[in-house]
């Protein structure tokens, strides 16, 4: 995935805003065919097959989850073994205090496996996607968190076709709004002047269908 702190790099984007996920997906495919490098897409909900169309590889989160599970399983075993056998051996149900009571460790191991996997996955996911509480998202359109989808193309990148052609293509693909040079903004850092711009987006629109 791409670093979402796009504001920090002072980048300018060619932006197409869609209100239909099928149109967005089709636009991505068309642009990819023409050899355009797409920076990223921002959607308020998961769009099926968009990741394949953008050429992203599958997440490694599952591997992380497995490792977390293993860690949890081992922790559970260590915990139960250390407490029941090494540190404070207790006779429970007339059973010996050694590894032969492994059966009684299983519930602990099982629960800790689940706990570590669940927490590990949530923490890894939040860390990787920077969904940390308090952080304000860098936005290209205010409605990208509501009902609009944003297709962003980095203007600094070499493209196979000219910028005008890209804008024309985006319009043709059914973007409700196309902007050839747009900066990301962040509500936590925006000045009064910027805020006015955001609240009154008509001034930044280059074209409306």
């Amino acid at each position: 995935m791409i670093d979402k702190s796009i504001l920090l790099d002072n980048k300018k984007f060619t932006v197409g805003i869609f209100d239909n996920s099928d149109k967005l997906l089709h636009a991505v495919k068309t642009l990819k065919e023409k050899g355009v490098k797409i920076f990223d897409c921002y959607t308020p909900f998961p769009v099926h097959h968009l990741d394949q169309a953008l050429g992203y590889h599958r997440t490694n989160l599952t591997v992380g989850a497995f490792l977390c599970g293993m860690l949890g399983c081992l922790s559970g075993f260590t915990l139960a073994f250390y407490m029941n056998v090494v540190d404070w051996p207790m006779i429970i149900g007339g059973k010996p205090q050694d590894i032969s009571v492994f059966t009684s460790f299983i519930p602990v191991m099982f629960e800790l496996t689940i706990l570590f996997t669940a927490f590990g996955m949530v923490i890894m996911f939040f860390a990787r996607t920077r969904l940390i509480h308090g952080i304000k998202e860098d936005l290209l359109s205010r409605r990208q968190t509501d009902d609009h989808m944003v297709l962003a193309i980095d203007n600094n990148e070499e493209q196979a076709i000219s910028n005008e052609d890209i804008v024309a293509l985006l319009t043709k693909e059914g973007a409700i709004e196309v902007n050839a040079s747009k900066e990301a903004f962040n509500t936590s850092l925006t000045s009064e002047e910027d805020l006015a711009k955001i609240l009154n987006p008509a001034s930044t629109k280059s074209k409306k269908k």
Partner: protein
Amino acid sequence: MGHHSIQEVSHEKFEFQGKAKLIPIVLIVLGAVLAIIGSLQVKNNWDNVGHHAQTKDGVTHHESAPNHHIAHADDHHNLGHVEDTLKESHDETRAHETTNHNDQHTKADAHATVDHADEHHGPTWMTRVWANLLMNSYYFWLFAVAAIFFIAVNYVANAGWAVMLKRIMEAQSSYLLIGSILLIGIIIGAKDTLYHWVQYFHSPAAGNPDAAGYDRILESKSWLLNNTSLFFFIPFVTIVWILIRMKLRKNSLAEDQEKGLTMFKNSTRWSAGFIFFFAFSFSALSWLIIMSIDAHWYSTMFSVYNFAVSFVTGLSVMMVILQYLKITGKMTLVSDEVVHDLGKFMFAFCVFWAYIFLSQWLLIWYTNLPEETTYFADRLEGGYRTLFFVNLFMCFVAPFLVLMMRNAKRSPIVLLTAASVILIGHWIDMYLLIMPGTVGEHAGIGLLEIGTTISFFGIFAFTVLRSLSKANLYPINHPYVLESANHDVGP
């Protein structure tokens, strides 16, 4: 979805004739020949082994009555605390016996002694043959049971993803008829040999509290363990299942002729009824057929355990049939997504089986009551010890670690391997369910067992493939067929 999608499901047929038809028949015959050779081997070796055991043990008459745990506690000491407790319980019961306590276990053991003295001569080679037949017929019968349950669950849950596999399930459940006939035939033929409660209820002590061999535990179970159950209840249940299965199949075939929701709604109703009936009847059947082999022992998890075995093996068989059809170039419309989901189901029910296994084992292990631990003590000693752990490895550990990976659930080779491991693992599971209580220490996996399995496999394959060839491979007019064809679980 706005992109590539299947708008219509094609008519596709599976052909089952000529050479393909010959292979199962050859397997049936080959298996039968192997089984006969195997049983003759067993017969010839039996007397030698039996004689040897008798001279060695001298007075241990329990040796040949494996239903009673005290026989085993005598000669094995490698079980750790479980066995220790068992030994204690054994000593205790011995003490009770001498002081004439009117304790339940004393009665049970006294019964064993008396019973053995007059008519019960322990397992003969025929016991092994019958036990082996029961094991294999039950094992293959479970596949069919799982298939019909799967159809019903899909209807009731309004599930769409597996509709493309519906004809496979229907074909698999077609074995229910012949499987039930074989199973019931074998149960009735084997009842005197395998079920010691049948022998008990024929003995003069039955129903007579003052008699020497009176067995309070068995008497308390007489409401279920009786001839009426064997001769009427089992056939009644299986006939109801077969009728519902026929109704569902008839609806399914009728649906191919005309579109609409009529058949779907009707099948949903029948499926709901089936599941309700199935929950009770399958439990009772698993107690009657399998748990009553160890008639003194009981476990409330047992029927769930049998269901878990049934479902996970049924799913594995479904996967094998699906992959077989895919290899032969059929069922190309079944996408990787559906295969992936079936793989997930296999994975999930491996874990479910392990969960149920642990639930049963954990409680018995913790409470440590002699009359309960005897079941596992029998299985954790001698020749069964290795198989016990092999079973756990093949049914849980190996499939769990392999099927966890996403790519594994999308690779036909890995899926086939996993399904085979699960199937062989649960064959061993069945072996562990039935053999310790019937054949005891004389059990083994030889030509007899393998031959019988091959033979049953032949019958199963023939029935299923024949049924598969009789209809379209896809239920073309099922309301969810396009949903299944375009099934997508995302990245």
